[in-house]
């Protein structure tokens, strides 16, 4: 049995298929069903902020469906969504022990060189997960940890794996396997952790969650995602202080963000990522959508849903996405051609942009040669592309 065959206890609904086609394989159905729920939530949300938080944290702690196909959507739903208004340490601990993450970052068969299994099989570590936790998930790169810290942390995490997938009741669930675990105490970032089995790793994660470098790293990424490519240091400081003072309370972090005056500057500096822009287009128009089309739209624009190219996730800056505008025009035109008939693009300028709409944008939409062209131009207006 393979991970995409049944790592999750899934309750698949019929996947969306076009008439006359075979339904896609089960793992693809799972991803499509999960994607459908995610898109529905974002399109239907009265206020989308919490959905935006889910997307942010999902990208921060990303896995890839290219590898963990059937688990990618469940991962977000199980490990990310319940914690976006909770505590960072809880999300971190669930994320790093989730089967999707253990599989994605190659920890399943990492074994201590002095563990029972390591000696018997003359096998050893895979340090991928330990490195990316330090570099991407918590402290951030260049924050003082060493190769030795990575190696020792990898030893701490040996034994974090899943129940064999052929096991009928618990296959694919997280399990700590002592015979894979490197015995003995380990020193990580200057602190020594006794060998308490699975608790040794949880203790390291708990300390990483409270490390000042983590607060700074998270604060910066949070501000960059929600406010500006180069956020003001005062905003980052406020967020880091909130994170530290509340012991990583993510609800307080979000409240700090939306009550900070720096978050309410009049300039709309952020270029929406393709996924955000597509949701905005669906919300503005109320158009019917099918999940496969939304996913392929994102893919065409370089942001394949749950499939970042590397564990650092999708980039969060304008320079990454701006060249894709040329593709967005084509997608906007194609989409507008399908849905514009029953819409009034001039009225949508008011609905979607209101006082933000420039005179140029109003004129451009009003003077278009057709409803479809007017809608395409509205979707491509600078005020609509930015937030």
């Amino acid at each position, binding site marked *: *049995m*393979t*991970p995409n065959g049944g790592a999750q206890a899934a309750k698949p609904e019929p996947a969306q298929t076009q008439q006359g086609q075979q339904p896609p394989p089960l793992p*693809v159905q799972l991803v499509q069903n999960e994607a459908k729920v995610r898109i529905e939530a974002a399109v239907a949300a009265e206020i989308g902020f919490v959905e935006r938080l889910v997307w942010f944290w999902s990208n921060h702690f990303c896995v*890839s469906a*290219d*590898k963990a*196909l059937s688990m990618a959507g469940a991962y977000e739903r199980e490990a990310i969504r319940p914690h976006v208004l909770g505590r960072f340490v809880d999300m971190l601990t669930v994320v790093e022990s989730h089967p999707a993450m253990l599989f994605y970052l*190659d920890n*399943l*068969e*990492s*074994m201590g*060189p002095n563990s029972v299994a*390591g000696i018997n099989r003359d*096998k*050893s*570590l*895979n*340090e*991928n997960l330990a*490195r990316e936790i330090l*570099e991407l998930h918590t402290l951030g*790169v*260049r924050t003082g940890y060493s*190769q030795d810290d990575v190696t020792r942390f990898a030893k701490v995490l040996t034994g974090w794996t*899943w129940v064999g*997938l052929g096991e009928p009741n618990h296959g694919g669930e997280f399990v700590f396997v002592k015979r894979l675990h490197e015995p003995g105490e380990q020193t990580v970032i200057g602190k020594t952790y006794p060998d308490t089995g699975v608790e040794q790793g949880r203790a390291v994660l708990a300390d990483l969650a409270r490390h000042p470098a983590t607060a700074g790293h998270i604060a910066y990424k949070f501000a960059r995602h929600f406010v500006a490519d180069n956020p003001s240091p005062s905003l980052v400081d406020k967020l880091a202080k909130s994170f530290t003072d509340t012991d990583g309370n993510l609800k307080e972090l979000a409240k700090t963000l939306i009550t900070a005056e720096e978050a309410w500057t009049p300039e709309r500096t952020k270029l929406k990522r*393709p996924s955000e822009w597509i949701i905005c287009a669906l919300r503005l128009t109320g158009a019917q959508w099918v999940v*496969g089309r939304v996913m*392929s739209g994102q*893919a*065409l624009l*370089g942001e*394949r849903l749950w499939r970042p*190219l*590397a564990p650092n996730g999708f*980039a969060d800056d*304008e320079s990454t*996405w*701006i*060249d*894709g505008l*040329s*593709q967005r*025009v*084509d*997608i906007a*035109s*194609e989409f507008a051609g399908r849905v514009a008939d029953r819409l009034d693009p001039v009225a949508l300028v008011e609905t979607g942009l209101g006082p933000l709409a*420039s005179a*140029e*944008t109003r004129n*451009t939409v009003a003077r*278009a040669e057709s409803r479809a*062209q007017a809608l*395409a*131009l509205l979707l491509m*207006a*600078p005020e609509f592309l930015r937030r």
Partner: protein
Amino acid sequence: MTERHAPSRRELLLASGTLFAWAYLPKLARAEGRDPRFLTIVLRGALDGLATVAPVGDPDWVSLRGDSALTLDSNTPALKLDDFFALNPAMPNLHRMFKANEAIVVHAAATSYRERSHFDGQDVLESGVEKPGAIRTGWLNRLLAGLAPEDRVGSNGGRAFAVGPVAPLVVRGPAPVLSWWPRRVLPASDDTILRLLDLYRHTDVNFARVIEGRTKLSAIAPAGSMEQKPGGQIAGPDLAQLRAYFAEAVGTAAKFLAQPDGPRVGALALDGWDTHYNEGIATGWLAQLLGALDAALAAVQENMGPAWRETVVVLVTEFGRTARINGTNGTDHGTATVMLLAGGALKGGRVIADWPGLKAENLLENRDLKPTTDVRAVLKGLLKDHLRADDRALAADVFPGSDDVKPIAGLVTSA
């Protein structure tokens, strides 16, 4: 313990490539009657140099890598390059080019970066600056931005072009960009484009530059000449699609570079080389990836036509991988690795290596192949001799702080 979803790693790659090429003509080279082409391919994820070009003549090689060591007498024998080095058997085209003196391998090469973060490593490689995250522009952009405006090609001047929606850092910078991508949806009408351009010119100059680039590109590439039919599927990549994608992305770059009025310098990035688990050096995943890359190089040669003899393709990666195999039949992040050069303009058929050896005491931190050649020395040598970039610009603007890194001379035939 568990079986893995076998095709998973093979699905990592699609839609990852991005290509930019500059519509500048290198002026000094032109004055000599040459018309050089230069294509940079960034392999992201850290290519295992020892699995790509194996030191089969090193007495410590087989004991270091064990069953995973490529050798000349295994079931899938490596392709002999010289008395010491042999190429991964998945790369017969590169081997053919090497034997025709049209390829060079540089081994035990590394940038100045000595930590092991992919993303910082890529930043150093692509920015050309020693400190990661210090600058948001790439060395290729700064090289070409340094050329005088009059060096631009006619009406298409001053722009890069791209395959795919996301530009790699190596070509980002102050100069504007053209982008090309395989058409999967019907393009917006020219009228819509013009109206949008008019709007952007009054409201957002950065957006306007992108749309201007689109219109300029269509002048180089007549409608339909570079494109597949609309409606191709992007989802569900498999190995055949991966090979097709590599060949299409890289081969299309070559088509543009070969055009009389096309760009002359370009770059793209191919992801997926991070082989922590079940690396598959001789017959598995890595071999398949290298095979796709090899086919893409053959596509460059084919699509370049007569321009191949004036072409240099350089393949670089952010760092290498551990000298030894890790606990899961893969390799973790390392340091030195290979650079692969291909093209008819090369003085090829050579492996350039100041070989550091593979004994434990010869490895960096008893772990990685020790770097003995600076990637920048190779790049500076190529940029100087092939494109006629000047020493001062190379040391000051393109690779700042690299005064002590001397360009390697004599890599190309015309030098």
